[in-house]
């Protein structure tokens, strides 16, 4: 068996992963699979990627010790400030990497799917930077609830295509992006925003996001003298920020990993997005992984107050981490996430994204000794969620 986080040559993490794609998509995915490792390891790519992460994205992002929050919880909490990245979330790390990859593959047109809009904004941003055409597919439901991000994408020159099929959310936007890619194989690169989809996407996105855990290791050592934290916590929808935050700790057995899913209105209601609890193995968007489905294998509609966690599947790496117990999966409800966000606003003066708020909501439940050192990946900022916060939290 392979050592996580690297998948096998065919893209398997344990029994999860692979590339379950129609022949129509094979040429596109094969081109990427054959080239991605060579490009990612190429010196000129690394130099350009590192420079952009530093000068454009604003990396390294701070590792901030949240002292007031720590005092309330009884252990030391460090926040990895991905919310301070350009465009407001970790999504930009992957987008910058993939746009450089797309240019090296000679592609002139970029497509993407987006849920909360963060990945769409990140993609629109790097397309403007690279001077490439950008088309973003977004569920009509999400367009309504994430209006500020739709506006940002349009200002950046992207074409936002509303998707009305299915539930008109993230999974449907992904289907539509795949259909576009089938029809435009030659000139188009599809920038998937999470560690989902057919191999090599889960590995590609995890590698591009792994900068998060690489920085955490260096910063924690410099700030505390500790080589390793006792735990790392991140929210999981498809799982890209968690993959990035866990990546360089997967081989460190003393570091506990906690992935927090969206329980929606509650795991035992019909409105939830807690895939590892409610899901079962199957194929979604080209990957054999855990997904939420009915008794006939039809993919069901998840629910979360957070559009970014509203996905019925989970990346195959996370399915494997859940199956082999390397990561502990928890879930937080809409209400718990709102309260946790409010707590962070009041104790630390930070407005987190609703997605991140789920990770924050699980903090007080972590089975950790007092004085433990915990790193929480603050994956995004809450600007896009202001109207939700104002509706639920303002007096």
């Amino acid at each position, binding site marked *: 068996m392979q050592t996580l986080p690297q998948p096998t040559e*065919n893209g398997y993490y344990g029994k999860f992963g*692979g*590339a*379950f*794609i*129609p*022949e*129509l*998509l*094979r*040429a596109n995915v094969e081109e990427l699979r054959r080239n991605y490792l060579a490009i990612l390891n190429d010196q000129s790519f690394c130099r350009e990627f590192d420079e952009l992460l530093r000068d454009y994205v604003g990396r390294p992002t701070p590792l901030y010790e949240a002292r007031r929050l720590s005092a309330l919880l009884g252990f030391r909490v460090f926040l990895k400030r991905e919310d301070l990245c350009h465009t407001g979330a970790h999504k930009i790390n992957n987008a910058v990497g993939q746009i450089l990859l797309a240019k090296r593959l000679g592609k002139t047109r970029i497509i993407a799917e987006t849920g909360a809009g963060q990945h769409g904004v990140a993609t629109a941003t790097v397309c403007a930077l690279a001077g490439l055409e950008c088309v973003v597919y977004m569920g009509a439901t999400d367009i309504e609830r994430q209006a500020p991000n739709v506006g940002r994408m349009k200002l950046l020159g992207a074409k936002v295509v509303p998707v009305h*099929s*299915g539930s008109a959310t993230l*999974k*449907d936007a992904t*289907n539509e992006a*795949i*259909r576009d890619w*089938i*029809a435009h*194989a030659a000139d188009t690169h599809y920038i998937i925003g999470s560690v989902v989809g057919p191999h090599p996407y889960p590995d590609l996105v995890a590698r591009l996001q792994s900068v998060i855990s690489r920085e955490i290791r260096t910063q924690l050592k410099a700030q505390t003298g500790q080589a390793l934290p006792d735990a790392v916590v991140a929210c999981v929808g498809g799982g890209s920020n968690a993959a990035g935050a866990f990546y360089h700790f997967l081989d460190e057995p003393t570091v506990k990993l906690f992935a927090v899913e969206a329980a929606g209105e509650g795991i035992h209601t019909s409105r939830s997005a807690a895939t590892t609890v409610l899901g079962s*193995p*199957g*194929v*979604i*968007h*080209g990957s054999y992984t855990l*997904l939420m*489905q009915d*008794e*006939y*294998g*039809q*993919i*069901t509609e998840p629910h979360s107050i957070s559009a970014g966690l509203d996905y019925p599947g989970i990346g195959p790496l996370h399915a494997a981490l859940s199956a082999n117990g390397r990561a502990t999966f928890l879930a937080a409800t809409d209400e718990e996430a709102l309260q946790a966000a409010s707590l962070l606003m009041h104790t630390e003066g930070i407005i987190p994204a609703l997605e991140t708020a789920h990770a924050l909501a699980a903090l007080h439940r972590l089975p950790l000794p007092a004085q433990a050192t915990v790193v929480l990946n603050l994956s995004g900022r809450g600007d896009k969620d202001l109207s939700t916060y104002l509706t639920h939290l303002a007096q």
Partner: protein
Amino acid sequence: MNTIDKLFTKKSQQVLAVYITAGYPALHSLPDVIDALQDAGVDLIEVGMPFSDPMADGEVIQQSSGVALKNGMNMRLMFEQLQEIKSSVRVPLVLMGYLNPVLSFGMENFLRSAASAGVSGIILPDLPPEVYEAEYRPFFEQYGLHKIFLVTPSTSDERIVYLASLSGGFLYAVAEAGVTGAQTAHSEKRTAYLKRVRKLAGNLPVLAGFGIHNYHTFSAVCEVTHGAITGSAFIRALAHESELRGSVNDFIQRLKYQTDDSTVAK
């Protein structure tokens, strides 16, 4: 002998295959549509198993899948419907669908049910041939079911040979780049590609699909292949339940024979 093989021993030109989504337009339409199709002279029927996330399908088939699911169609019911009409079905049936509902039903259970319902072949576009070979091939053989693979204009020669070697019954040549229901490609390029597929497929018959929507497109690809499959155009032409039989027959006659309006492509 598998009924698809029997078909091609009797007929090697202008074979007309039609795709219909089970459960569309109404929950119990399938038996009537199959009956109307075979009465209209269709040679092979591809029964689509509706899926919530049909990523290789265009708008028309997506919509028909959505309607079918809303109507309450599921795998068990589809097999029951096929079982009921088994003795009156005179043309080969092929099931087409996505992998997840099949895995959920259980691959072996699915193949057993299909064989027992009189099905002769299976198309699962998102089941890669490598996985089929490694895990499922013996089950298909055990139940006497042909696995039919798709090739596309971007499939390499070497891979067309490989896919043809794994396929039984016929090879499905996707005539257009794009999802089902997309526009018609330039005909010279398409002809050259279909000729290439036929040559590489050897003795395996080739049916072309995607973009076949009228007499013109049907007869054009039939000059190079053994026949063609039409899907989206048929679904679009299907009328409301009460006029189902008439609309089926009209569409098939317009596809098979040149009529005044057959050049007016939809």
